[in-house]
């Protein structure tokens, strides 16, 4: 555990001490080594589920994929931010990398925490660097508004969680994840108990985000710089899903009647946010709304509380993390060239950036869940487990897949196909850095086809 955490912490002094000329290369190489080393977590010899333990931290099949994804994302963020920060003074560049690194530290601590309180603290701690990234490095003045929304939605959602956790601590005497699942379930008889139940989940549902509490997400995504969008879509939303899965064990037996409205709400959100995507003109906003739509499916898969539901949710979280992050990077390549997020202004790019079109195509296909990509495995498992609960969910999930295909291909056709407008004839060519960035997103996704058990969580 520490062999990943300590190098990550040491990345901060290295950022400040390495010479300005080699700042990006050294940090990139260093973080990539950390990412590669983190893959060793997948090798779990123990049968009990928990491994790499120390006093406060451990990994299990549920947290390992998310941890590896977190570590994988840092080099990609560094790679993606290189261009748009190049005009800033080197001190600020160092500061930026430090922020990204601190985010990774908090995320590792959050995902590997064996104590719920520590998970809670780290969950909250990730807000700070993210807020700074959005409000300090965003491009438009709306970034301040976006930062406010981001902070207030998540804080308002998560403060009840603290109270709920203290109450739980009071009744069970421990908040260790290792033993919590053996604790007697709380009685959910009174209204206060039901509020406690809602308090336990609300923070995560806002973070996911559940449809209805999602307003902060498109704003934050649109206004954040590329690295912020990437980490938000790829990992921070997954904190919500991860937290829900952990809490579900505690809340397990009696929550069926309470969870039904949330499931329906999540599925309804898949349709509604999908329809919003069909009308989007703003590329980043489209990808952000598509994240809401996919995370709705994840929320429904978790709330259904079956092994297939959990597995599907975890697969979809990982797959969606890589896919949406890749899409944001692609959107950023357009943004850096045209300085606009409007899709109408960057059309027909296949003519000028043909290799980029390939990446756009693969990423769009991953977004619409083409077999055998893990996105499909996840969606199919969630759809099946929901179908097992009620046949009528298929009307929503089915329409959801149709709409997803619609807007993913709309995005692809809109940006890549058609004639090239005259004003972008002299567009800047692509860099190897950009291609590498996208390949490093898509390659893990494609390799996961061969061994999906890695991200199957408990039921693998």
């Amino acid at each position, binding site marked *: 555990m520490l062999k990943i955490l300590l190098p990550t912490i040491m990345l901060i002094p290295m950022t400040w001490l390495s010479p300005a000329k080699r700042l990006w290369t050294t940090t990139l190489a260093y973080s990539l080594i950390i990412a590669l080393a983190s893959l060793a977590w997948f090798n779990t010899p123990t049968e009990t589920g928990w491994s790499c333990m120390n006093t406060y931290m451990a990994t299990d099949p549920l947290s390992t994929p998310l941890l590896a994804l977190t570590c994988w994302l840092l080099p990609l963020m560094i790679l993606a931010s290189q261009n748009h920060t190049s005009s800033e003074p080197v001190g600020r560049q160092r500061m930026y990398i430090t922020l990204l690194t601190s985010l990774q530290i908090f995320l590792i601590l959050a995902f590997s925490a064996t104590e719920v309180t520590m998970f809670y603290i780290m969950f909250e701690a990730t807000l700070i660097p993210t807020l700074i990234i959005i409000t300090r490095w965003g491009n438009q003045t709306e970034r301040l508004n976006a930062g406010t*929304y981001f902070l*207030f939605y998540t804080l308002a959602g998560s403060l009840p969680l603290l109270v709920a956790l203290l109450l739980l601590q009071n009744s069970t005497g421990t908040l260790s994840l290792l033993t919590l699942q053996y604790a007697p379930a709380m009685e959910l008889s009174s209204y206060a108990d039901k509020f406690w139940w809602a308090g336990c989940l609300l923070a995560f549902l806002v973070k996911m985000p559940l449809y*209805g509490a999602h*307003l902060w997400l498109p704003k934050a995504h649109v206004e954040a710089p590329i690295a912020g969008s990437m980490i938000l879509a790829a990992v921070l939303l997954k904190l919500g899903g991860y937290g829900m899965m952990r809490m579900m064990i505690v809340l397990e037996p009696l929550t069926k009647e309470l969870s039904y409205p949330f499931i329906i709400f999540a599925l309804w959100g898949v349709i*509604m*946010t999908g*329809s*919003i*995507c*069909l*009308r989007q003109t703003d590329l980043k906003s489209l990808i952000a709304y598509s994240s809401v739509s996919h995370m709705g499916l994840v929320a429904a898969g978790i709330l259904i509380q079956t*092994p*297939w539901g959990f*597995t599907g949710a975890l697969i979809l979280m990982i797959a969606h993390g890589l896919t949406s992050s890749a899409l944001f990077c692609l959107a950023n390549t357009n943004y850096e060239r045209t300085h606009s997020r409007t899709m109408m202004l960057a059309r*027909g790019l*296949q*003519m000028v950036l043909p290799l980029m079109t390939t990446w756009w195509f693969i990423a769009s*296909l991953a977004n619409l869940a*083409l*077999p*055998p990509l893990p996105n*499909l*495995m996840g969606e*199919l498992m969630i*759809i*099946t487990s929901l*179908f*097992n609960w009620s046949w009528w969910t*298929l009307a929503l*999930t*089915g*329409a959801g*897949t*149709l*709409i997803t*295909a*619609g807007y993913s*291909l*709309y995005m692809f*056709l809109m940006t*890549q*196909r*058609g*004639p090239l407008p005259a004003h972008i004839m002299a567009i800047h060519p692509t860099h190897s850095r950009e291609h590498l960035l996208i390949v490093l997103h898509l390659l893990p996704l494609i390799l996961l086809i061969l061994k*999906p*058990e890695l991200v*199957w969580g408990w*039921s*693998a």
Partner: protein
Amino acid sequence: MMNNPAMMSTILTSPLHMTSSMVLVFFALSYPIFTSLSPKPLKNDWAISHVKKAVKLAFFISLLPLFLFLNHGTETIMTDWKWMGTDTFDLCISLKFDFFSTIFTPIALFVTWSILEFASWYMHADPNMNRFFKYLLIFLIAMIILVTANNMFQLFLGWEGVGIMSFLLIGWWYGRADANTAALQAVLYNRVGDIGLIFAMAWFATNLNSWDLQQVFTASKDMDLTFPLLGLIIAATGKSAQFGLHPWLPSAMEGPTPVSALLHSSTMVVAGIFLLVRMSPLLENNPTALTTCLCLGALTTLFTATCALTQNDIKKIVAFSTSSQLGLMMVTIGLNQPQLAFLHICTHAFFKAMLFLCSGSIIHSLNDEQDIRKMGGMNHLTPFTSSCLTLGSLALTGTPFLAGFFSKDAIIEALNTSYLNAWALVLTLLATSFTAVYSLRIVFFVSMGNPRFTSLSPINENNPTVINPIKRLAWGSIIAGLLITSNMLPMKTPVMSMPPILKLAALIVTLLGVLTAMELASLTNKQFKTTPNLTAHHFSNMLGFFPAIIHRLTPKLNLILGQTIAAQTVDQTWLEKTGPKAIVSLNEPLIETTNNIQQGMIKTYLSLFFFTLALALLLLLI
């Protein structure tokens, strides 16, 4: 036979030969794909030297399992490599080489080989010809994955694979808005069908706990399968362009002609019918599903045949004829004769591919002119192509002893001798006669009469890459039906004796169709009516007003939902105005009130302070 040890050993090892040669087929086909991933630019003749050769090679390899099957009846299932597994649900890579896949694979490869050769001529001016060939090859591989799949997941893989490759190929000329629209249409209509397939898969997973075909077949013996079967029928409706989800097929003509040829003959559109053929053990005991297939098929075959009658684009006519034939296949599934439906898939592949290649050749010769009203007299200028066009049309109408006859006649006979829905029977017979009408119309307008095109057309069919593929397919259109029917054992006992009128029904309605068409053609010259009756013509010419209504209404409603309800009403009003923005506007008056007091008027504050203090002191002292 079994006493002969040499024979015995052949029988024992033939499954091995079968599986290994089928794996070789996959290897041969995917080799060019993998080598093309190398960053070096491909050679100009890569398309011919690698892709076409790979398909040709794969065809010859696939003949071995075919002969093994024909000689010994070898059928085998190959399972290896556990792909993924949960505690209770395993998924292995498993390939099924049975009657259907062993016969279909060589046919698909043969047809594709011809189409690729033709495409090397048709697309010679395209700078991305190598990429085009690569797409076609992946398209074919996806279809073979679908055909040989032994579990639903693999089938779904091939299913979506052909779908997405058709998106790329239909939208090949991506600078054109029409091509992009057509490509998107194809994917969206297919996605509607996919919902049905996902439904069926979810049902199988929850109720039977397996996606392996043989497990599904055995475990579902005593279950009511109506709902999953309806899901599969919806899937087939989308993929095979049955009524309701059909408009994408004529739109798909936006793609290059070789794409249309491949899409309509041996890949993509037959996938839907093939799925139902594959699932026929489930279908055969479910009257509801069968009746649905029958009525759906009959409706499709008549409707699309009607649409074909008045089209003027040569490719559109051929496309609608495919749709009509797919309807006929669906009828056959509904008659519970999956083997006959499969037979029709096989024979149809030859002549439909040939019809498309012929029209491609003619279109190219006439300077990309697709309107049959501007053709004519081609039998003098391109004798070979136009005679093959005629041959294909004849095979399509079911002229005795050509390929189409063996399947079509058998289907109509089975239809006539069944006790099923008479309406479906009438519709199908009507569609059969329409087949003759529009086939004659093509031949009449393209080959016969006088030329109606501009005089400077680059007419030249004397190129081996045009002649050879068409010739091969022409041979196929002549003998394929005979070859396949004489080599396969019917799974169901066909009714052999029937009254002559029933036996000859297919031929009679076809002849009636031809005669009516001739009469109509002569009527157009005489012009008895001053104002022609146009309603029926418009209905057919406008494709039953189906795209005009559905393609406007549905997207419009969806987009309105997205804009006014989802974005404006819910997101911006209910969620934002009553949420964060309401908090701001509720707090603002309070803030302003407290803020307004703090105006820095130090004299007022001090005097107020003084007076209150004085008052307080006064009160205390008193």
